[in-house]
C-alpha cells in the first residue's frame, strides 16, 4: 500500500477546511458537533438526574422516558448523554497521549535517520504485531479496571502508528532545501526539528487522529463491555450494553440505545476522517 503522506506533508491545515466538499464529511462534522455539545451540556440537557429510582423498575420507551429506563430505574437517555462525556474524554486522552509520544519519537527517527530510525522502527514493529484490542486486553487484565486503565491500555497500542507516520513525513521534510539552508546556517538540530520539521509534519497526523477517533471509541467500548474499563455507577456506553445484555430479550432498550450511541459516534468520526483524508490526498481528490 502506498501512503499519501509524502504528497500531503506541506498542506497547511487551514487551507484544507474550505475544501471539504464531501457531503459525508459534512454529515460527520455536524454529528460530531452535536455529540460534543451533548457531552458538554449533559447536566442541562438530561431530562432526569443520573440516579437510581429502584421503585419504578425498568420502564419501556415512552413519552416520559424516550429511551426507557434501566433495571435500576435510571433514565437511559440521561445516561447516554453522560456517557458521551466518558467516551469523548477517553478518545481525546488516548489520541493526545499516543500522538504526543508517537510524534516525538517519529520526528526524531525521521530527522535523525540511520540507526536511530532503525532502532525506533523495530520497536514499533513489535507493538504493531499485536492487534490493538488484543494488547490492550492483555494490559487491561493485569491492571485494575478503570477509565485510566482503558486510556493507558489503548494508548500503548496506538502510538506506533503515529511514530511511523511522523517518521516518514519527517524523513521527506529533512531533505527539503529550507532544512538544508537552516543546517548550513548552523541552526542546532533540535531547533530545526522544532521549528521546521515538527510543524510541517502535523497535518497528516491530525488527519490520522480524526480517522482513528472512531476506532479508539470502539476499542474503549469493547474493553468496558468486557468489564475491564469504567465501573458502576459511571455512565459508559460499552458498560451500559453489557448491563443490558442479560435482559436483552425482554428489556431490549437498556442495551440497544447505548450501542446505537457508540455506532453513531464512531460513524461520525470515520466519516469526517475519510473526508479530511480525501481532501488532503490529491490522488483521491482527482476522482471524486
Amino acid at each position, binding site marked *: 500500500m502506498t501512503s499519501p503522506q509524502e504528497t500531503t506533508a506541506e498542506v497547511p491545515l487551514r487551507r484544507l477546511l474550505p475544501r471539504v466538499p464531501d457531503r459525508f464529511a459534512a454529515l460527520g462534522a455536524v454529528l460530531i458537533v452535536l455529540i460534543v455539545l451533548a457531552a458538554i451540556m449533559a447536566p442541562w440537557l438530561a431530562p432526569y438526574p443520573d440516579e437510581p429510582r429502584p421503585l419504578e423498575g425498568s420502564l419501556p420507551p415512552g413519552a416520559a422516558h424516550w429511551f426507557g429506563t434501566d433495571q435500576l430505574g435510571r433514565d437511559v437517555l440521561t445516561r447516554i448523554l453522560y456517557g458521551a462525556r466518558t467516551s469523548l474524554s477517553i478518545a481525546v486522552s488516548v489520541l493526545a497521549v499516543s500522538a504526543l509520544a508517537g510524534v516525538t519519537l517519529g520526528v526524531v527517527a525521521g530527522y535523525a535517520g540511520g540507526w536511530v530510525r532503525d532502532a525506533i522502527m523495530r520497536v514499533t514493529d513489535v507493538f504493531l504485531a499485536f492487534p490493538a484490542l488484543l494488547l490492550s486486553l492483555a494490559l487491561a487484565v493485569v491492571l485494575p479496571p478503570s477509565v485510566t486503565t482503558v486510556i493507558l491500555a489503548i494508548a500503548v497500542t496506538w502510538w506506533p502508528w503515529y511514530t511511523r507516520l511522523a517518521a516518514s513525513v519527517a524523513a521527506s521534510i529533512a531533505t527539503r532545501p529550507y532544512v538544508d539552508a537552516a543546517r548550513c546556517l548552523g541552526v542546532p538540530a533540535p531547533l530545526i526539528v522544532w521549528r521546521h520539521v515538527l510543524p510541517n509534519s502535523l497535518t497528516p497526523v491530525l488527519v490520522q487522529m480524526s480517522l482513528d477517533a472512531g476506532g479508539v471509541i470502539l476499542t474503549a467500548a469493547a474493553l468496558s463491555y468486557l468489564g475491564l474499563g469504567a465501573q458502576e455507577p459511571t455512565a459508559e456506553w460499552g458498560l451500559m450494553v453489557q448491563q443490558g*445484555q442479560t435482559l436483552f430479550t425482554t428489556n431490549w432498550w437498556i442495551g440497544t440505545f447505548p*450501542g446505537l450511541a457508540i*455506532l453513531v459516534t*464512531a*460513524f461520525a468520526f470515520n466519516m469526517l476522517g475519510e473526508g479530511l483524508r480525501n481532501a488532503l490526498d490529491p490522488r483521491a481528490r482527482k476522482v471524486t
Partner: protein
Amino acid sequence: MLRYLARRLGQALLVVAGVVVLTFTVMRLVPGDPAVAFAGPKATPEELDAARERFGLDDPLPVQLVAYVRDLVTGDWGVSLHTRQPVRDDLYLAFPASLELVGAALLIAVVVGIPIGVLAARYKTKFPDFGVRFGSMLAVSVPVFWLALALQLLLAGRLDWFPVAGEYDSSLDTTSPLTLWTNITVVDALITGNWPILTSTLHHLVLPALVVAAYPTGVIAQMTRATLIEESGQDHARLERALGFGETSILTKFALRPALSPVLALIALVFAYSIVNGFLVEAIFNWPGLGSYAAEAIRSRDTPAIAGVTLLVALVYVLANLVVDVLQGFLDPRARTR
C-alpha cells in the same frame, strides 16, 4: 528474491522476539503473587514455596525470561489457572474453532465486499456509490458485541431462523459422533462425511460469521472501490476507452486484477484483526473458540492463558504479514525494494 526473503524473515524473527519479551513483561506486571494465584488462597507456606520453585519465581528476571523462552520453544506454554490444563492443549482445541469462524467471515467479506466495491466504482458519485460508502462506513463503525446481541435477539430469538448459540447441536454427539482430525468441525465433518454435524455447524455458523464479517466487508469494499477508481484513471484505462471498451468491462477485465493486490494485503491484515474482534462475538454466541477461552480467562484473571492467547494471535499476525509480503514480493518485484 532470495535476499528479500531472508531479510523479511529476519525482520519477522526480530518481531517475534520482541513480542515474546513484551508478553513476558505484561505478565510480570500482574499485581499479586502468581504463586498464590496458582496454589490458591488456602495454600500452606510450603505449597507456596513449591509453586515458586516450580515456576522459578525467586530467580532474577532475565533468568526467568530465558526460562520462559526455553519453555515456549519446547512447547510448554504454562498451565491455565482455570482449566488446570496445559495452555497449549487448550489453544489446540480452541484455535481451530476460531479459524472456522473467521474463515467463514472472511469468505463472506470477500464474496460481498469485492463486488459491491466494483459496483460503487462503476457508479461513482451516483446513488449506488453513496449506498455502498454509507453502508461500508456503518459496517466498520458498528460495535461487534452490540451487533451480535441485536442479531441474536432478532434473527435467533424473535424470528427463530438460526440457533441462538453453540457450534452444533450437541445431541448429535451421541447419534453421529464426530471423528476429530483437524479440530475444525466443518472440515472434519466434511472429510468423514458426517452430514448431520456438517449442516448443523453451518446453520450455527451463519449468525456469528455475519457479525464478524461486518468489519472486513466494509474495509474490503472501501479498498476495492478506492483502488479501482485509481486504476480507471490510469493510462491503460484511457487506451481501453479509446478502443471502445465500456466502463464495466474496463473495470472488471483490466482494472480489477492490479487492484486486487492491495486488497489481498488488506485481507491478511483484517484476518488477525477479525480473530480478536471474534473474541467478543464468540463469547456471546458461545462459540468454543479462542474468544470464549479468553473471556473465561479474563473473568478468572488467568494470566498464563491470557499470555498464551496473546502470543498465539500475535504470531498469527506476524505470519500473515510475512506471507503477504512474500507473496507481493513474488508477484511484484518493486515490492522487494521497499
